[in-house]
């Protein structure tokens, strides 16, 4: 599955670019599902990128594991989910030194959360590379109850915490790693627009 092309939007909407190899520098890599293909392409362009890489892969139902393992990263680990990988990822950030590169590939949910974690650990924004692959599902924060609903694919959608019907905004918070959802029928309770699929 090729890299996603997002249509131009407001300035706070994150923009992603193809991963560019930074040589054999120490690297932390997180990939989810089809994001594996971005890592495979990265290694094909410059195999030395794996020399000092710690690669964490979340299969998400795809079968890329063996091909990623074959890249012979210094450290390779498969985790069933991002929350399961979180402590390992945090420890890697804690032990990292300046000069470490971060490569992220997958959905906006993974990229958003992993970026927020890295920024909080002190990695400057320009050391983070992120390429979008796979599902267009978004992480949405409900501005009313503050709960985050994962894997949102429709607009509007139902907040999985408080039950309000929310419309999907492109306004994005790097700190939370999520887009903003706002009640769609506040002024006209019960009257909601037709549900559409979120497109790029």
């Amino acid at each position, binding site marked *: 599955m090729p890299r996603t092309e997002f249509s131009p939007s407001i300035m706070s909407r994150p923009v992603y670019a193809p991963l560019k190899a930074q040589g054999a520098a*120490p690297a932390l890599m997180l990939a989810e599902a089809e994001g594996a293909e971005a890592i495979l392409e990265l290694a094909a362009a410059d195999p030395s990128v794996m020399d000092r890489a710690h690669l964490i892969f979340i299969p998400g139902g795809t079968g890329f594991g063996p091909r990623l393992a074959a890249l012979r990263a210094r450290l390779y680990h498969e985790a069933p989910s991002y929350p399961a990988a979180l402590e390992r990822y945090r420890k890697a950030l804690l032990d990292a*030194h*300046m*000069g470490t590169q971060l490569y992220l590939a997958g959905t906006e949910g993974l990229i958003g959360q992993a970026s927020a974690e890295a920024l909080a650990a*002190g*990695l*400057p924004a320009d050391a983070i590379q992120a390429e979008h692959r796979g599902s267009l599902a978004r992480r949405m924060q409900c501005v009313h109850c503050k709960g985050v609903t994962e894997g949102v694919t429709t607009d509007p959608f139902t907040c999985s915490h408080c039950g309000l019907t929310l419309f999907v905004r492109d306004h994005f918070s790097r700190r939370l790693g999520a887009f903003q959802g706002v009640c769609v029928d506040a002024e006209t309770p019960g009257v909601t627009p037709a549900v559409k699929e979120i497109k790029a």
Partner: protein
Amino acid sequence: MSALTLRVTEITPLSPLVTRFRFEHPEGAGLPLFSGGAHVVVEMPDAGVLRRNAYSLISDPLDGSGYEIAVRREDGGRGGSRFLHTKVSVGDLLRVNLPVNLFALDLRAKKQLMIAGGIGITPFLAQLKQLARLQMPFELHYAARSRAEAAGIALLPDLPQIHVHISDEGNRMDLGAILSGQPLGTHVYTCGPEGLIAAVDETAARLGWPKGALHSEAFLAPPPGAPFTVTLKSGREIEVGAHQSLLEALEAAEVAVDWSCRGGACGRCETGVSACHGRIEHHDHWLSDEEKASQTKIMPCVSRFVGETLTLDL
């Protein structure tokens, strides 16, 4: 532009070339506080020429009883430092602009790594006081050719995080070693000659440091050059002398131009060019490469011109 008239209360040589000046309010009032890395612009009336030089504040940012600067004497320069060293005495009054900070610490940093060359130690002297109060982890490397040149040594606290490298004594600063193994969240601040800043940038890039973690301040003096003439919108012509910057020539001709750092870094004096028959010599760090190539903008504080006519949007 608000300025304070301050009295010179102390003049203390720190080394054969560097002198510390202390300024206080003539009526003893408190001076506006500032943040480490800030500089002030001192106005020096020197026999009919009004000079304005920017100097980093070395005193404690939270101490409003006075401002202190350390000036390196440059006899080959344009005269500002020579004026301070030879024509200023204790008790004199000088106009000093309110502090402006173009080299502030990033307070989110997990560790502050400071690299100073020669007189570039000055902004760090104020920042060290700020860091001590905030109790933030830091490391300072101070490189100078000789002990005589290392005027700041006497003003540095005796702490293990402070490393002095005197190249005459065979102790050179190893940037590769300094920039390796630093924890995530370290920010680097470099102040000193352009060559040092370039060396830090290059070593950091080689070691994979992102640009967002690197900060620098160069003490750029406007370079001299062949005299030239500029034309204003009204048709009035202004002549710029060999050792005079375009900004100074405009000020002498009472043409209002906004300014702040006077060293090509802050963008405040950016001026539009409506006609250019010749070549603008850009010496600033503000305009983009495209802007410089287009010759539609100029930074009068440091840049010059060679050619037939340069018409400014003034």
